[in-house]
């Protein structure tokens, strides 16, 4: 079943088009990766889904439907009921995702209180369970953000966004700020939880390596447009668009460390 459907989405400021005609869908249980460099418009697309665009940036045309509801025309109040419960986000910057002077547990509880009418006791049970799901000890509940490492915080963020079993998880570069081993563990957890909840994942990254194992489909984005979409196998083994090819070639290979990489030299020739 298609959970999220973005059709011909165009996002612009008054004098610049940032995202153009993006069409993308995520079915329940599916893991869709949106891959592109910084400034390609991938994060902007992700923010638009939750109505999180700010300031000058506006949706110019196109539609975003979640189930059978139109998200763009939806009222703020209705949308905020949806966010955190049925659509949840995990961001790259785990530090700013938490208020530094509240314990992690308080912040998880806050989310539960907003979206449910459960008793204090029930909420505590759910929260501790969610922490257990991401392999964190119960003591984390009482910790403050500064006492946890980056990997632990990102796991708390994942626990928080998955505990109400959303039908769509939007993960915006959740592993970019982590080192590769920690990132690997975080990804594993994310995929396990998403599988259990049969939740659709929209995974945004600049690094194809992060999605190699889990993605079902991949969309490659460049300068605000999707240049290629396909199943993971097709993108990795038989990429069509030259940009996809160069993205793949930019990754250093483990068994061959003498040949030069293919860098995208765009940034140099301005």
């Amino acid at each position, binding site marked *: 079943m298609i959970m999220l459907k973005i059709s011909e989405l165009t996002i612009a400021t008054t004098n610049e088009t940032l995202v153009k005609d993006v069409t993308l869908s995520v079915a329940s249980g599916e893991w869709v990766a949106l891959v592109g460099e910084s400034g390609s418009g991938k994060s902007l697309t992700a923010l638009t889904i939750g109505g999180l665009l700010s300031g000058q940036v506006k949706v110019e045309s196109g539609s975003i439907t979640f189930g059978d509801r139109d998200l763009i025309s939806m009222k703020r109040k209705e949308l905020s009921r949806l966010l955190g419960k049925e659509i949840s986000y995990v961001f790259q910057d785990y530090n700013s995702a938490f208020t530094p002077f509240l314990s992690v547990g308080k912040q998880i509880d806050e989310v539960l209180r907003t979206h449910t009418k459960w008793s204090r006791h029930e909420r505590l049970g759910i929260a501790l369970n969610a922490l257990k799901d991401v392999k964190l000890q119960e003591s984390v509940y009482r910790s403050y953000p500064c006492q946890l490492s980056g990997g632990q915080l990102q796991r708390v963020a994942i626990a928080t966004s998955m505990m109400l079993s959303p039908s769509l998880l939007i993960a915006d570069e959740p592993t970019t700020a982590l080192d590769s081993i920690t990132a690997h563990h975080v990804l594993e957890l994310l995929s396990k939880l998403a599988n259990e909840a049969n939740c659709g994942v929209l995974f945004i990254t600049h690094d194809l390596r992060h999605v190699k194992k889990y993605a079902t489909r991949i969309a490659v984005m460049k300068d605000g447009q999707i240049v290629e979409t396909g199943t993971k196998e097709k993108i990795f083994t038989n990429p069509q668009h030259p940009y996809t090819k160069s993205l793949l070639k930019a990754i250093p290979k483990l068994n061959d460390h003498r040949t030069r990489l293919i860098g995208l030299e765009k940034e*140099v020739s301005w």
Partner: protein
Amino acid sequence: MVRRQDANLLTVKHVTKTYHSDLRALEDICFSIKLGECVGLIGESGSGKSTLVRCLLQVEQIDCGEVLFQSHSLHNLKGKRLRTARRNMQAVFQHPDASLNPRMKVIDSLMEPYDIEESITFSRSGKMKRRKRAIELLEMVNLPTKVLDSYPHELSGGMKQRVNIARAISTNPALLLLDEPTASLDVSVQASILNLLKDLQEECGFSYLFISHDLSAVNFMSDSVMVMKEGEIVDAFEASNLFGPDRDAYTKELLEVYEM
């Protein structure tokens, strides 16, 4: 540039560093870097990689052990000798932003080591010479001349890191400490920076200590690789031996992450 082959440029012997009495940051670290060689160091965040860099740069003092650089013991150096040693050992850090003064033009950041050495001249010819040198440096890192008069915020992350690299090589150092130079860049930009570093090494014969959490980047850059975990070096091998059977369990776990 002719440099004597097969001599150890940097030798680190039994270096230990402890913070606040019980927190072991570095534990009995031993390794050496030969002239023109690139040694890779891989480890998770918090494994002590950056502490090692700060100790090598003499920003922090080691508790025991010895660091020999160009056959001088580093922690006995004082004053002018220490300054010379430092200019021969430059560093490039992870965040290109934090390494450039946001209020200084690129040319002024780039030429800072030069300005310190040359004592600033106000003469026209002196300024011309300085600008010419800056342009040479930019060419070495493939940046257009027009960035000279830009401010850092007008540059992309990759370009800023190129400026940092240019500044580091401006004193013609023997050793470059590269502390996660590509970690905060896009993969596509990482590739260009890695290529650049490799080209520079071949052209100018620099030695590198390349530090990263990215096994594939370390493997691409290095002749030999060390694996660090909780302040200790748990594995060290020639890059060609990455898939060898005698790898440490931790190295194998790292490999698994990348094999996928």
